[in-house]
């Protein structure tokens, strides 16, 4: 987990501890605000994804968790339903490798991977407390994947896009009338990119998805 992500986790953990103590009659809570029928809420995203293709990522980057940065918008309805559209990106540099009988051998040849998910999801927000709003959702994404390495011909580099699926669950912490922070866990499954070649084929790993801890700063009521 990156230092930024770690800081965010600590902030949310502190908020989570405080929230129950503040749980009181919503009508008496200064943060309580009768939500509008439809609210458009832009957000900024930081996440750390633990990729399902662990061996593949370990071989190339020496780790399985990579940070994503992005943003998007949420349309929230008074009845609790919401729709999110998120665009994020991760870019990492590692090395090409060879894998044999479970052992990875780094070859020192620079390799850069860029993934750009465009995800649309919908779900439900539980207005159980003015400060803490749990939510669950599911959706679909289009995942752009680029892989390039030194000493490669153009046709040996990869630029592709595949569809994937996601489910998510977490909570929004209301910090004020117009600002919230969300923390959630999102599981994505992205078939069709890994597994047909490269280290992923050797490791028999076919999913570019993974389990992400996501943090969003969300603006709006």
């Amino acid at each position, binding site marked *: 987990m990156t230092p930024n992500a770690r800081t965010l986790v600590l902030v949310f953990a502190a908020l989570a501890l405080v929230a129950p103590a503040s749980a009181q009659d919503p009508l008496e809570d200064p943060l309580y605000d009768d939500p509008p029928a439809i609210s458009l809420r832009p957000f900024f995203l930081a996440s750390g994804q633990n990729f399902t293709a662990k061996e593949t990522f370990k071989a190339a980057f020496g780790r399985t968790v990579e940070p994503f940065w992005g943003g998007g918008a949420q349309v929230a309805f008074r009845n609790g339903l919401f729709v999110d559209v998120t665009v994020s990106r991760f870019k990492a540099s590692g090395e090409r490798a060879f894998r044999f009988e479970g052992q990875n051998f780094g070859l*020192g040849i620079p390799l850069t991977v860029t993934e750009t998910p465009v995800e649309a999801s919908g779900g439900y927000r539980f207005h159980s407390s003015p400060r803490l709003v749990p939510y669950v959702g599911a959706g679909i994404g289009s995942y752009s*994947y680029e892989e390039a390495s030194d000493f490669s011909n153009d046709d040996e580099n990869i630029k592709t896009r595949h569809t994937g699926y996601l489910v998510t669950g977490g909570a929004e912490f209301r910090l004020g009338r117009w600002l919230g922070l969300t923390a959630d866990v999102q599981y994505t499954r992205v078939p069709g990119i*890994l597994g047909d*070649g490269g280290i992923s084929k050797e490791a028999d790993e076919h999913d570019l998805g993974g389990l992400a801890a996501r943090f969003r700063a969300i603006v709006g009521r």
Partner: protein
Amino acid sequence: MRAYPARVAVLAFVAALTASWIVRGQTAANHSLVVLENLGLPAIDEGVLQDDSHAPNTAEAIRRRALGAALAAQRTGHQTARYAPGRVIVKFRDAVSTTGRLTVLSTASRTASLRTRPSYADFDIVSIDPGEDAEAVARTLRARPDVEYAQPAYRMHTQLKPNDPLYAELQWNLPLIDLESAWDIQTQAGSAVTVAILDSGVAYQNATITTTIPAFHDEDGRPYPALGQVTIPYAAATQLVSPGRFVAPHDFIWDTTTPLDFDGHGTHISGTVGQLTNDNIGTAGVAFNVKLMPVKVIGGVWDDLFGSPNQGTDDLVARGIRYAADNGAQVINMSIGRTGPANCTTNSNADGCAPAVEAAIRYAVSKGSFVVIAAGNSFEDGNPTEVVAEIAARVPGAVSVAAVDRRATGQTGGHRCLGTAAQPDCHAYYSNTGSWVELSAPGGSERGFGRDGFVWQQAFNFNFTDTFLLPPSQYRAPRFDVFAYIGAIGTSMAAPHVSGVAAMLIQQGITSPAAVEAALEKFAVDLGDSGRDNTYGFGLIDARNALRGLGLAR
């Protein structure tokens, strides 16, 4: 043949002056060869030798082989060409005491006695009467429960199909395995890796040799006169030597630490692995910055005539492999081999198998050495099983290498050598086929290409070394200081391509021998039948792709 009388005179004078002042002289124990190391004039480089009198199966090539066999028989008094008479290689089980071992020996032969265990051996050498059938003695011994294996000291031979006749002009073989792209990836070209050349020695230093050459009869019984005491100039191959290049040299044929090549085979092989490159001179090598460890385990005709105490047999080769592994060789090139029975895979202790060599290869791989073995040149001679190469197929981390000729086009050519009119076979006509073949590399062929089909590296100008091929009246002492670029063909030439690429792979980061083998096989250009086949194994090695390895998705 040209002569250099002035050089010889100078050398004789220098040798006389230093007769009592030996700089670092080595005399092989109890033998007539005196090597004054680092004493001698530099080599003469005669460029490309436009001479094809050493084409495969020419009279010269056949004579060289026959003469070697005849000399061996003359030295030993026995026509046991397949193995050295008078000894058996035995590995007793660990629990067997010395007394127990002697008891076991007495059951196998009245004349059997245990010699002092040689260095770099996990086996013992048992002396028997030279007239006894060593194979029968070995058979009796290995029937005993206290014996792990027993075998005669079978003779090994080089896998060269020698020929006599620079990068862009001659070396079709290096672009074929995509080396130019590989050198772009790894500019160091194996500088941190040591490759042992288990062969006939290497021309790696200057020396002056004094020896007595006796009379002999050639294979047809023609007498050749004794040359008496001679002083022979010896020089390092100009395109092999650079500072710090040679490490831990050892000579098991002469029991010294100066494995000088009196044949040319080992020097040619060393050139393919690591000829000095990009210096505007001569030919290129595959991993041109590797360190080379010359380990002499095979003798040539001159070693016989100089009276070498040992010949290239299984025990020496096994010790050579262990020596190389113990002294830090990460790659061991064995462009040597011998034929044997087809059942060693199921019973490595059967008659004619090489359990001592197999144990040594397994030991070397366990110590981190990748072992490369030539698959053999006997395809047109009945395609017998090559027992040493065949060992490689059952040891992950050791590979056997077949040869392709110039018809192969490599990764970019798209030619899979399917044996069809559109994609003709590119199997080198001499290269053995069999279930043990794992990889292919350029070995060359004169058929259809003439001299353009050879593998070219710097070696001795054979006109100055192979004087034993001349009629008796023209026969004279050799000199080993005149070099030329020599074309040769054979699986001997194919194997060092693999050794060189393996050295580069190890430098790139693939340090496990089994993984090196897996990488070479995975990235080979599949030739012939889809997947592994008995002609090309997993296919033609591809240096660039092997070195480049894998990305996440491609």
